[in-house]
C-alpha cells in the first residue's frame, strides 16, 4: 500500500512538473510577450528591448526556464502584471474557495446520486427507472454556466431569495456567529446547486450501472432467494459490492468537477482558482497563469491520488493486487 502511494505521488509530481513545463513553453511559443503586455501598445522598439532585458526575456530559453523553475520551486511565483500583487498570494486565497465548493459538491453529488441509482436498480426496467434515467442524462447534458444563469434568473431576479455573486455579502464584516454562517451558506447555495445537480446526474448514471452489475452476482441472487427484503438487500449486498467501481470513479470525477467549477466560478464571481485562471488568461497575466495552472494541476493530481488510496482501503483485492505486483 505504501509503495503504491509512493509510486503514485511520484507520478503525480511528474504530471504537475509536465504541466508547468508545457505551460512555460506554450507561453513562450505564443505571439506577444510580457514586456508588450507591461509596456502597452505605445512602447517603442528600444523600450521593448529594455523591458525584455529587465525581465530577462532576452536570455536563452533553457536559462529562462531553469531560473524560473528554481524561483517557482522556492515559492517565488512572481507578481501579477494586472494587479501588482504576488501571484502566490492570489492563489493562496483562491484555492480554499475552489476546494470547498468542489468537495462539498462531490459529497452531495455522490450521496444523492447513489440514492437515485439504488432506487433505479431496485426497480430495474420499470417506468420509474426510465424516468430517472432520462432525468440523469438531462442533468449531465446541462452546460454548467447556463444552468447557473438560469438559477440566477429564477432565484435571484425572479424570487429574490438568494444572492448570485461572490462568497459573502458586502456587510460580512458586521456579521457574527450565526448570521455570518447563514450569509456564507446563502452565497454558497447557487454555485453549489449548479455543480451538484450536474454531479448527481453523472453519479447516478455510473452508480446505476455498477449496481446492476452487482445485482447479477450469484451471492445477490442467493440472498434474494433466501427471502431478504429488497431495501436490506440493496443496502447490505448490492451497494457494498457496487462501492468499489464507484469509489474509483469518484477520483476520476474530481477533474470533471474541477473543470465544471472553472465555468461556474466565472458565472457566480466565486473567487476560486478557476476564476483567477480565467481572468489571468483573458488579461494575459503570465505569472498568474503559470501559478494558477500549477495549482489546478496539483488539485486534480491530489484528488486522483486520494481516490486511489481510498479505493485501496475499500477493496482488499486492489491492495492485494498492488502488493503482488510491487
Amino acid at each position, binding site marked *: 500500500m505504501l509503495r503504491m502511494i509512493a509510486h503514485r505521488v511520484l507520478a503525480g509530481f511528474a504530471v504537475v512538473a509536465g504541466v508547468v513545463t508545457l505551460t512555460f513553453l506554450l507561453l513562450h511559443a*505564443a505571439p506577444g510577450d510580457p514586456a508588450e503586455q507591461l509596456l502597452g501598445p505605445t512602447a517603442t522598439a528600444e523600450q521593448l528591448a529594455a523591458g525584455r532585458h529587465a525581465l530577462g526575456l532576452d536570455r536563452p530559453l533553457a536559462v529562462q526556464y531553469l531560473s524560473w523553475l528554481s524561483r517557482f520551486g522556492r515559492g517565488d511565483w512572481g507578481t501579477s502584471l494586472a494587479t501588482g500583487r504576488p501571484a502566490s498570494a492570489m492563489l493562496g486565497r483562491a484555492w480554499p474557495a475552489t476546494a470547498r465548493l468542489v468537495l462539498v459538491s462531490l459529497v452531495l453529488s455522490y450521496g444523492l446520486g447513489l440514492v437515485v441509482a439504488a432506487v433505479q436498480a431496485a426497480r430495474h426496467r420499470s417506468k420509474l427507472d426510465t424516468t430517472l434515467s432520462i432525468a440523469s*442524462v*438531462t442533468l449531465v447534458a*446541462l*452546460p454548467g454556466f*447556463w444552468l447557473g444563469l438560469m438559477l440566477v434568473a429564477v432565484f435571484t431576479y425572479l424570487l429574490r431569495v438568494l444572492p448570485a455573486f461572490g462568497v459573502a455579502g458586502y456587510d460580512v464584516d458586521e456579521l457574527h456567529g450565526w448570521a455570518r454562517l447563514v450569509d456564507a451558506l446563502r452565497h454558497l447555495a447557487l454555485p453549489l446547486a449548479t455543480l451538484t445537480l450536474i454531479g448527481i446526474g453523472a453519479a447516478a448514471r455510473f452508480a446505476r450501472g455498477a449496481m446492476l452489475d452487482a445485482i447479477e452476482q450469484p451471492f445477490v441472487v442467493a440472498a434474494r432467494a433466501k427471502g431478504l427484503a429488497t431495501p436490506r438487500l440493496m443496502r447490505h449486498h448490492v451497494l457494498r459490492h457496487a462501492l468499489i467501481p464507484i469509489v474509483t470513479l469518484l477520483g476520476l470525477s474530481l477533474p470533471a468537477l474541477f473543470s465544471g467549477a472553472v465555468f461556474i466560478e*466565472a458565472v457566480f464571481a466565486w473567487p476560486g482558482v478557476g476564476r483567477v485562471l480565467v481572468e489571468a488568461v483573458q488579461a494575459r497575466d503570465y505569472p498568474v497563469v503559470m501559478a494558477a495552472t500549477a495549482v489546478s494541476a496539483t488539485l486534480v493530481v491530489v484528488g486522483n491520488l486520494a481516490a486511489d488510496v481510498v479505493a485501496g482501503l475499500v477493496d482488499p483485492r486492489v491492495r492485494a493486487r498492488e502488493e503482488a505486483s510491487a
Partner: protein
Amino acid sequence: MTAALRDWRGRAGLLLVLLALVAAIAAPLLTGGDPGTLGDVVATRFVPPFARDVHGVFHLLGTDRLGRDVWTRLAYGGRISLAVGFLSVLLSVVLGTTIGAAAGWWRGWPAAVLSGFTDFALALPRVVLLLLLVALWRPNAALVVLLLGATGWMPVARLVQAEVRAHAARPFVEGAHSVGARSRRVLWRHVLPNALTPVIVAAALGVGNAILLEAGLSYLGLGVQPPTPSWGNMIASGRDTLVNAPWVATAPGVMLVVVVVGCTLLGDALRDAMGGRSTAAL
C-alpha cells in the same frame, strides 16, 4: 447500428441529433435570413417569443438586444456548434486511432513511449490546457476545433491500443500473417476494423462533450467570436438581459441540452448494442 436503433434510446438520440442537424443545415430555408443583419435596432429589440415586431415581422423566439432574430441565430449558431463538435471529435479519433494503433501494434520501446505519453496526456487537466491555449492565440472556430481535437484523443488511443493488443493475438491475425500478408496490411484490413467498435461509442459521447466545451469557451469569450453566432456566445450575450429578455439566453441552452442528451442516448444505445462495457468518453 440496427441493434442500437431497436433500443428506444438509440431512436430518441438519433432523432434529437438529426433535428438539430437539419435545423442547422437547412437554416436559410427555415429562418428569416442572415443571422447578423442589424435593422432598426431600437424598434425591433427585445421582442418576446411568438410576437411580431413593429414592422410586422414574426419572431418565433423573439429578438435580442440588437433586434436580431433569436431563432435565426440559433439555427446558424447550430452550424458552428455542431461543426465544432463533430470535426473536433473526428480529429480526436484520427489522432487517437493512429497513436493507439501504433502503441498496440508495435513492440518494445516505441510502444512504451507512446503508451507513456498517452498516460501523461490523459492526466493533464483538459479545461486548464484549453483555456491557456485558446487565450494565447486569437480565438476562432478553427482553433477551437484544433485544440479540442488535440486535447481529446487520449481516451481513443487507450481504447484502440487495448483492442489492437487483444486482436493481434487472435487466430485470424495469425492466419493473415501466415499466408504472407505484410504487417501493415494485417493491421489495416484485419485488426483495425475490429478495434474501432468501442471508438464509435466514445465518439458519440465525445461529440456532446466537445459541444459543451466549445459553448463554455465561447461563453467566456475565448471561443467563437461575435458577431458569428454560436450557442455559447449567444448565452453570453443573453447574460446581461436575463431580467428583461430571458429568452435570449434560454433558447441556446435548451438546444445545447437537446443535442448533448441526443449524443449521450445514442452513445448509450450503441454501447449496449455492441455488448461492450466501456464507459470512456472523449
